[in-house]
């Protein structure tokens, strides 16, 4: 499994969690954090790579009401959309450039 939850937040409901991503680092962490921080209802979102020698990334989300899992899923979906849009736009520009 690539994602797991850090223990300790079970008593505080679904609105705060720290997820642990295996084999991920700043590349995904920062981009995802950047999107999720712009959502309504998100109180805090941040990430850390606890140790450079361990390839894992801790991703913390705190919200007022929305379950963090929903927020995380929405973030990933939006990031995916950004990527798709970038690919389409880039390929179109490359095509236009090589034509000219």
């Amino acid at each position: 499994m690539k994602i797991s939850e850090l223990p300790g937040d079970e008593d505080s409901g679904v609105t705060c969690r720290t997820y642990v991503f295996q084999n991920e680092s700043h590349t995904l962490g920062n981009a995802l954090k950047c999107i999720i921080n712009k959502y309504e209802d998100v109180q805090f979102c941040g990430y850390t790579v606890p140790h450079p020698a361990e390839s894992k990334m801790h991703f913390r989300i705190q919200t007022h009401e929305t379950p963090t899992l929903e927020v995380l899923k929405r973030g990933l979906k939006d990031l995916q959309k950004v990527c798709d849009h970038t690919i389409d736009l880039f390929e179109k520009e490359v095509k236009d450039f090589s034509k000219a």
Partner: protein
Amino acid sequence: MPKLEEKPKVLLEEFRVKNAPDDYGMADEKWSFKKFSKNFRIVIVRMDSSEMEFDLIGIQPAFSNAFRRLMLSEVPSMAIEKVMIKNNTSIIQDEVLAHRLGLIPLKADPRLFEYRPEDATEGTEFDTLEFSLKIKCTMNKSQPKDSFRTEDLYENHSVYSSAIKWQPIGNQASVHKEADIGPVHSDILISKMRPGHELDLHLVAVKGIGKDHAKFSPVATASYRLLPEITLTREVKGNEATLLQSCFSPGVIGLDTDGKAYVRNARYDSCSRNVYRYDAIKDAVILSRIRDHFIFNVESVGAMTPNIIFVEAVKILRDKCKSLLDELNSF
């Protein structure tokens, strides 16, 4: 909140770098994909098979940095990973030779190959390329009498990457063309030898990523910088104008027929703050950079063209999101 000027800027002042006073760092606005896709533009400035310059405009630094990081360390390429040394009587040690061979860029397109499974001991035709390097240095029988150059005295005295010969396995010979597989450059010096020295090596190349070893990175460089902007606040003429011109990179400041300075092309300015050394002209310029205008420079090593490398990088991020989403849905 005051209305943000169209282009968010960082000001390069004499002793500090400052955000524009009405600039809240794009962090306050709420996320909307519609808004993103409306503002986001890509402009291709320069492109050939090995180098490319393009602009990403209106994008978050987190995204552009992710793309850069992906190109450097997560887009795969093929490289020599294992070297079986049957014979090496040259001066260069086995391990040093193996390392040198690993760094030779290969033309093989990584998209046509798979990663070799971690537990696999034998490679298959889908995940492995095999090469051989068999060369022996001898005296040159037909050497010119009065020449003492090593190239004339000995045969095969320098071993170049052109000596690496592809050994197709399985069906590879019919799937790939020989011209698309071997080293990108034929003139990379691997070793120098003397008569009696001999190399007999078996090379195994696999697909890998730059995170594992820099030799797998498909780019020589992939970097971005922010678009510089220079504004002249007053008229600068005569000697002052020439002085101003000399403070910037060539071609940045132009002089018109009256000897008046104007900003010709700020794009290729190095953004040095030389102007601030001269009291006479330092009040005449505002140096700044556009905070959401990223100028990317991508230089390929040779296996894939830079535009493909960028697209592959973005695809990797997209696929990452996709696989994580799939996993979260079964949480």
